[in-house]
């Protein structure tokens, strides 16, 4: 070996085991011998072998080396350029995708707006044709179904992720953790809040401006909460129109409120709720009924006990009495579903919702 282990490099310092004299201890030192070999014999053994074989030099040796070095230089600079040229290209592609997403989102919002305008026109024309009791009943049903914008007194609950990122549990240097901190508020909390509100007599609920209907689902995908397949982000504002005092009382007394209060103190999420005198909730754009068809009119009878009540996983049993008998037969698991029992809202003596077509 050319290289004397002078312990100059540090890495080769411990590699003083003599491979020749260790025949009796081959097995025990086999793995370390492999590492020693890796650390000490860094030169390709071919050079030594070729030198020992005393090969004559060929006339093509020099051009060969020349070509080899040329190839190395080419490779280096190509790899460098590739790395630095493809980075802007990737960024451009990313930006392009982002702009396309934004364009499609705004186009979707525009069409949404248009659909709402048209729906309002349809409703206005229909109201002009209809008269009296039928119209009032229809309006109540529309409020329950969420197809019209509504306003009225209610409560507003705001839950937000902590502004200061929580110290993550993952070990490692600063800045090596994932940029996106694990969110503390999940769909379950939002769902529980919504369920408590439904069960305490809310007549219309929206989450971050998305009105909940009978088929709404609050779900969790990746790191974000989806309401009816629309992503919402912190802070989450849940607004409910209904009997303000009763909803406030029921909510303040609910397990989810206590859990959120604890989380506020321990984990630093923001959480507050208050009664509001005038809330405005938007409407859902399109209500497509794929399977349900109009049947007997019994289901819309005032005070009709038919139909399941909203799910009450939030804990509070429904205080609504006879109007809400059947409990918790929730078809969409995990979805906050006011279900077909919503027309019961129309049976309350003084509906606190006033319709407002937009």
């Amino acid at each position: 070996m050319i290289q004397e282990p002078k312990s100059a490099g540090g890495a080769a310092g411990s590699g003083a085991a003599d491979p020749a004299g260790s025949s009796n201890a081959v097995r025990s030192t086999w793995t370390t011998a492999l590492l020693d070999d890796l650390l000490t014999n860094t030169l390709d053994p071919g050079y030594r072998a070729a030198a020992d074989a005393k090969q004559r030099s060929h006339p093509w040796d020099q051009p060969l080396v020349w070509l080899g070095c040329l190839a190395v230089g080419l490779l280096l600079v190509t790899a460098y350029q590739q790395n630095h040229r493809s980075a802007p290209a990737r960024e451009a592609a990313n930006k392009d995708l982002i702009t396309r997403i934004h364009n499609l989102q705004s186009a979707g919002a525009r069409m949404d707006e248009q659909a709402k305008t048209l729906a309002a026109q349809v409703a206005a024309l229909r109201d002009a044709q209809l008269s009296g009791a039928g119209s009032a009943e229809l309006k109540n049903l529309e409020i329950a179904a969420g197809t019209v914008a509504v306003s009225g007194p209610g409560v507003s609950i705001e839950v937000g992720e902590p502004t200061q990122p929580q110290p993550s549990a993952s070990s490692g240097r600063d800045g090596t953790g994932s940029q996106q901190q694990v969110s503390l508020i999940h769909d379950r909390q939002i769902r529980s809040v919504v369920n408590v509100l439904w069960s305490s007599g809310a007549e219309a609920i929206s989450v971050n401006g998305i009105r909940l209907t009978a088929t709404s689902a609050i779900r969790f995908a990746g790191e974000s909460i989806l309401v009816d397949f629309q992503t919402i982000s912190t802070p989450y504002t849940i607004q409910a129109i209904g009997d303000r005092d009763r909803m406030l009382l029921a909510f303040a007394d609910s397990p989810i409120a206590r859990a959120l209060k604890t989380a506020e103190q321990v984990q630093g999420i923001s959480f507050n709720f208050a009664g509001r005198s005038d809330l405005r909730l938007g409407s859902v754009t399109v209500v497509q009924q794929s399977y349900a068809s109009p049947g007997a009119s019994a289901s819309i009878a005032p005070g009709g006990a038919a139909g399941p009540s909203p799910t009450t996983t939030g804990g509070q049993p429904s205080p609504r009495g006879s109007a809400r008998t059947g409990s918790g037969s929730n078809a969409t698991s995990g979805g906050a579903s006011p279900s077909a029992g919503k027309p019961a809202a129309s049976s309350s003596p003084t509906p606190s919702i006033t319709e407002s077509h937009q």
Partner: protein
Amino acid sequence: MIAAVALVIGVVVGLVFRPTVPLWIEPYLPIAVVAALDAVFGGVRAQLDGIFNAKVFVVSFVSNVLVAALIVFMGDKLGVGGQLSTAVVVVLGIRIFGNAAAIRRHLFRA
């Protein structure tokens, strides 16, 4: 000396002509560069040791690049491409360091 000139010429050629790399080669380029560096440092050290051999140099360069690319390719196919790349980089990195240390001892006697 002539090798260094060739290296510089290679760099200049690359800068001037800006060769485009086919997309399927792109993942193997970084690992090929590390393998090529290993061959270069080995060659320089052999030169300083006085046992340089052109054939060994070229063959080790080509085979290093090919084998490194092959390992990464196989790793990609088996789903352990990242880990195998790490293994290749670690082994070649150790060799590069060892050779660089030997070259340093030759040049500076330290």
